[in-house]
Each structure stands twice: as C-alpha cells, then as structure tokens.
C-alpha cells in the first residue's frame, strides 16, 4: 500500500465498493426469487374494531387450515381507504383482495382493476346459483355490466329509532304514537322539541348530514318513497331534479326551517350521528344493526330506552323503506393469486354466523338471516323487513363526485334554506355532464331520440 499512489488507492477503493454493492444486489435478488411454496395474500379492509377482531381470528384459523397460505391483514381508516387503494393500484401494487363499499366498485371496474367472481371457488356454476346464497336483491348491488364483481360482505339498511323515555316525558305513547309517515315525524317531533331562549335543548328528530354517503342513500330512499328515482336503473341517466326528488329534499329541509324539529347547528361536521345516542335527539332515521351495539357500548342510558320501527313513508306514496347499501369482497385483477384470494373470500363468506354473533354484521346471506345467530337479536323482524324491501343505488362510475354534488345540494336546502327544486336543478346541471362523459361523447352530440332511448 505504501508504494501505491493516491489515485491508485482511490481507484482500488471504488472497485471494492462496486464489488460490495454488486454482491448485495445479487444477494437481494437471490432472496426474492428463492423458490417458496407459501402464498401470501394481502387483504385490506376498513377499520371496525369488533369486525377486525373477528377477522383476525378467522384468518388465524384459515392459515392453520391452509399452511401454505399467509394472509397479510391491513385494516385502513374508512375515509382514506378509497384514496390509498387507488394510489396503490396506480403505483402497480395494491392488495390481492379488499373489502370495499359496493357503490365505489363500478369506477374500479371501469379502470380494469377488479376481477369478476370466480364461481368455482364458491362451488357453483353460474351467477344464479351464486345469488341463491343471498336475498334476491342483494347480488344486484355487486353487479355491473352483467357480471358480479363483489362477494356481499356487509349489508345494511336504516330503520327508524325513537327514545321511549323522551316520548313518555312528552306524554306520548311509544307504541301508539310511533311515526308512520314523514308528516307524523313532523307532528310528533314538534311535541318532542324543547327550546330555551332560541337555543335547542332537545331535538324532536335528527337525520344525518355532512356525510355524503348516508345522505345520498337517504335522499334516494325518500325519492323512491315519493314515487321517483334519482337515477335510471342502469345509472346512465340522472333525474335528481325530478318532482319526487324535490319533494323528498324539501321535506328534509322543512324539518329544519318549517317544522323546526331539527337543528343542524347542534352537530356541525359530525352530522348528528351521536345526538340520538346522547339523548339530545328523540328520534332518528339513521342506523342499522350496528347501531344496537353502539348504543349498548357508548350510550347505555339510551340503550335502555329505545325502540325501532320501519322507516316512515310519504302518505299515499309507494311502500318502500330505506336503501340497501353494503360492502363487498373484491379481488384485484392484477393479483397473481386470484384463485387463492377467491377461496379466502369464500371462507369468510361462509362464516356469516360468526360475523353476526360477534360483531353484529350481516353478510347478506340467507343462512344467517334465518339462522340461530339472528333469532335473539333485538327487533330482528324490523331489520329483516327492511332488508327484504330495500334496493341499492344503481352503479355510478363517478359515484364520489356525484355524492359530493348531491351533498352540496342537500346542504343548500337544509342549511341555507334554498328551495329544493332550485338546489336540485343546479345539481342536475353538474351531474349530467359526468353521465355524458361516461357514455363517451359530449353532451351536444346526443340527439333527443338518443337521450329518450337512454331514459
């Protein structure tokens, strides 16, 4: 070394460094390409502690039954799941299987990111045989362009909740005075509302707000009840400013502005989901089976004094309740383990009893609906009737954008007092170009005959 020049020593160091780096790269490559019999499936879902606990136990059992399969389980906050999923797919990664809100799925299908169900994993030949596992309307919510993409994994529908103690304090009979129509809600709500110096101490009724998902479901259901619909069945035509939709939204706004039984200022941004639980609101139109355990754990006082019934209807309107909505298990089209992922989905779907008994979650299956797990569930017949009569929103490829537009329309009427018709006219103007874009042409290029054909 002594005889080496500075330049030679530097060169030697560089060669040694390059050799080390190359050996590291070779080692790394060898490690990743090492043959292995273990299949690792990544499963993403949304955070829901009781359900997450159940799934961790089910996964442990599945791995014990299938020693060559390893499940990487990742619960993600529900508000960021959509963004994380899309960015992961954009980056060429993403989970093999994921639990996702069914109305978001058409956008993923349009981008070629999800695979249709592999019926053989469920031991059946076709869609009809697969659909027989569920109530007749359930699988429709997971179908798109004639194929089924999601395994129903959480199905719910809202029913109507009242606080019996508040009813009795107001001199009302919870059984006899239970509201059957929206007009009843207004009349009874007025008797339940308590104000002091212009400030609301007790709301007669609280719907949801500031949650674009629940709010579009509520508006859609009320529009059906008023004899119309927000969208065509195939989701290609928007009719959000129809007279029925305007009636629905105006009723919602009138609870705040005309009947004054609902005070949106009590729960800005949070949308009032806790107001029924903490006793501030005497009635609410929000809550499915999950609400029972929420009341039991977080609001024991209200849990002692609640009862439920069907969603109110419009007098002389169609006899329909709240919308159905749900989450499904979807398998990524880019997954190299699609078959294994569908098998895992089948395993989870076959454990409907466990999901319901331990987490209050109904997977939409007939076996659980009529089985022992649900028999002792409080007011199960009311929920069951709601599941049987509800319908899903149609598939919408711009679902997120459309729900945001509808949410602003609802807020314009319910909060700002704008007439429902004017607010929905504006929403229709914003939504229609999205529909045209989906059909692949500019609005101006459609003839009136073509437009009529779509309708």
């Amino acid at each position: 070394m002594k005889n080496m020049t500075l330049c030679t020593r530097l060169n030697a160091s560089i060669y040694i460094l390059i050799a080390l780096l190359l050996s590291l790269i070779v080692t790394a490559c060898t490690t990743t390409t090492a043959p292995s019999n273990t299949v690792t499936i990544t499963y993403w879902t949304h955070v829901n502690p009781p359900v997450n606990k159940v799934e961790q136990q089910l996964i442990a059992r599945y791995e014990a039954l299938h020693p060559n399969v390893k499940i990487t389980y990742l619960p993600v906050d529900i508000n960021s799941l959509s963004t994380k999923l899309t960015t992961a797919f954009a980056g060429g990664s993403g989970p093999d299987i994921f639990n996702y809100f069914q109305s978001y799925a058409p956008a993923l299908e349009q981008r070629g990111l999800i695979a249709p169900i592999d019926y053989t994993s469920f031991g059946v030949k076709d869609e009809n045989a697969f659909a027989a596992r569920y109530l007749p309307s359930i699988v429709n919510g997971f179908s798109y362009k004639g194929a089924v993409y999601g395994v129903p994994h959480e199905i719910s529908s809202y029913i109507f909740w009242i606080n019996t103690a508040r009813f009795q304090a107001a001199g009302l009979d919870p059984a006899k005075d239970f509201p059957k129509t929206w007009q009843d809600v207004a009349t009874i709500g007025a008797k339940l509302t308590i104000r002091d110096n212009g400030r609301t101490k007790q709301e007669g009724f609280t719907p949801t707000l500031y949650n674009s998902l629940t709010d579009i479901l509520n508006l859609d259901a009320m529009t059906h009840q008023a004899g119309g619909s927000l969208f065509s069945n195939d989701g290609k035509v928007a009719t959000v400013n129809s007279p029925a939709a305007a009636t629905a939204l105006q009723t919602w706004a009138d609870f705040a502005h005309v009947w004054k039984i609902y005070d949106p200022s009590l729960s800005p941004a949070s949308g009032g989901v806790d107001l029924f639980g903490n006793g501030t609101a005497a009635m609410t139109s929000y809550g499915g089976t999950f609400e029972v355990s929420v009341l039991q754990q977080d609001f024991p006082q209200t849990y002692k004094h609640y009862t439920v019934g069907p969603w109110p209807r419009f007098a002389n309107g169609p006899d329909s309740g709240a919308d159905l909505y749900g989450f499904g298990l979807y398998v990524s089209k880019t997954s190299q383990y699609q078959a294994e992922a569908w098998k895992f989905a089948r395993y989870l779907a076959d454990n409907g009893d466990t999901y319901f008994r331990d987490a209050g979650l109904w997977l939409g299956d007939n076996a659980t609906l009529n089985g022992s797990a649900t028999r002792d569930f409080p007011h199960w017949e009311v929920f069951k009737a709601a599941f049987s009569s509800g319908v899903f929103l149609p598939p919408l490829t711009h679902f997120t954008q459309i729900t945001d537009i509808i949410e602003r329309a609802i807020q314009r009427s319910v909060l700002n007092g704008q007439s429902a018709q004017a607010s929905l006219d504006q929403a229709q103007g914003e939504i229609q170009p999205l529909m045209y874009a989906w059909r692949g042409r500019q609005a101006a290029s459609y003839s009136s005959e073509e437009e009529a054909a779509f309708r």
Partner: protein
Amino acid sequence: MYEQLGKVDSRPYSKRRVLAHMTLAQRRAIIGLLFVLPGILPLFIFVVYPMVSALYLSFTNWQLVGTPVLQGFGNYTDLLGDTQFHQSLIVTLEVAVGTALPSALLAFVVALLLDARVRFTGWYQPLFFLPTILPTVVTAIVWSMFYQGNGIINAGLGLAIPWLTDARWALPALIFMLIWTNLGYFTVIMLAGVRNIPHDYYEAARIDGAGAFRMAWHITLPLVRPVLLFVVVIATSNALTLFAQPYLLTQGGPAGATRPLAELIYDTAFSYLNIGKATAMSFILLLLSLLVVYVQFYVLRPKDI
C-alpha cells in the same frame, strides 16, 4: 502542473486532456458544482421534476390509473365554466384577504403592547403563543365545540347563531379561528422586529414632543415594514394553501361555502381521480400566489423614511 499532465497523457479527448484545456474558473465552477450537487440533486428530484411533471399532466386527461392522454388546454378551459372551482377560488381569496392583513396588524398591536413591558409580560407571551403550538386537529375540534348551536359562544353571549351551518357565518367563523391560531407566531416575529429598532429614535422623538401614537406611526411602523411584509406574505401563503382547518371544522360546508382551493384540488385528484384537472387548478393557484405576493412586495417595498 497541468502542462505536465497534458504531456503524460496525450490521448485525444481524454478526461485529463479536457481538464487541461479548461480555465481555472471553469475548473473551479465544476468543483463547486460537485460540492453543491448533494444539495441540488434532491431539489431537482423532489421539487423541480414533480413540478414539471405536474405541468405536463395539467395538459392531459389522466385518471391516476393508465396512461395520461394529451388534450391541450382542455382542463384549463373547463375550469372557466366550473362553478365549484369559482366558488373555491373566491373562498380562498376571501380567506387570504380576511386573515393576512388583520393578522399582521393585530400582531403589530400585540407586539407593541408586549414591548411596553407592562407587568406579567412573561406570563402573557406564552399564552399568546399557545394556540400556535397546539395541534391543528385539537384546535379545530375545540373550536367546533365552541361554535356549536348550544356551544360556549352562544351560551356566553346569549346568542343563537348557527356559526358553522349558515353560509353567512361559516367563513367569518373560520377566519376568526385562523387569526387566533396564528396570532402568537406572527406576534413573536413582529416583536423581534419592534425590539430591533434603536431606542435613540424614540428618545429623539420624545424630546421633540411626540406621543406614543405618533412614535408608533412615524417610527415603529416604517421600520418594521420588512417584518410586516414577511408576516403578510406568510399569512397569505398559509391562506392560499389552507386545507386542514376547514376540512376538520366544516368539511368545506355548508354547500362549499368554506371549501378552499387546496381542498378542491385534493378531492379532484384523489376522490374524483381527475389528475389533469387537479394539476391545472394547482398551476392556477401557483400563478395566483405569485401575483399576490408580487403585489404585496410592491406595496410594502422598503421606502425612504
């Protein structure tokens, strides 16, 4: 030495030959560049490259997945007729106007009061700074409770104002919270500027019979002008890139009345998956920011006293 090197290696275009033909200044420039390269390289990778990419994407139709398709100025022309974009742009400007100058002036007044060294100043200073160090989420949750219909503000003042659920009140309520949040930070900066002014000026003014207001107007204010400019520019920049507070406080509602441009850009990119349109909005926001800052620099530029 360089001539010797040239003789040793006479191969055409060799590195040593190239170096030999360089002037000393050129060689120093290259060496200098090599030294700053570790600093510049991340800047190019993480700032310049994403900005250039974003500019390219703003001329494309890209839905995050798949290949971007060039469509010229389509995204920019679409924005001309986009009511949501117009509403958010106006909200952003209203927040900038509503927070920048009031924050700076309020910070100036508080700095003067703190500089007066009244009793218990040591207690006041941390109190003013406290909102700045509180996490944004905590601040927003606390203020949303204050602003509730039956919250502490209405109860304390005997009012029944729907602060966050009425489009007329929601933006002023948000602006007030933003001013409160940043007051401590701006006051500290302003106080440093005020305390930098030599006391001789005030003594001379006092001998000439000037009162406290005249001294503040004719001495303090002109001499803290650069600090004032800094505060106004930072407050404007904060307002133009505002995201977290309205997102947590009102979710942009009611009906978009408090939805700033940054929130709309985020929604457009990651909820609606329209990256081209979102990047076009970002560049309009960038140009707007540059314009506003240029005007501020021009208006508050140093002048002779």
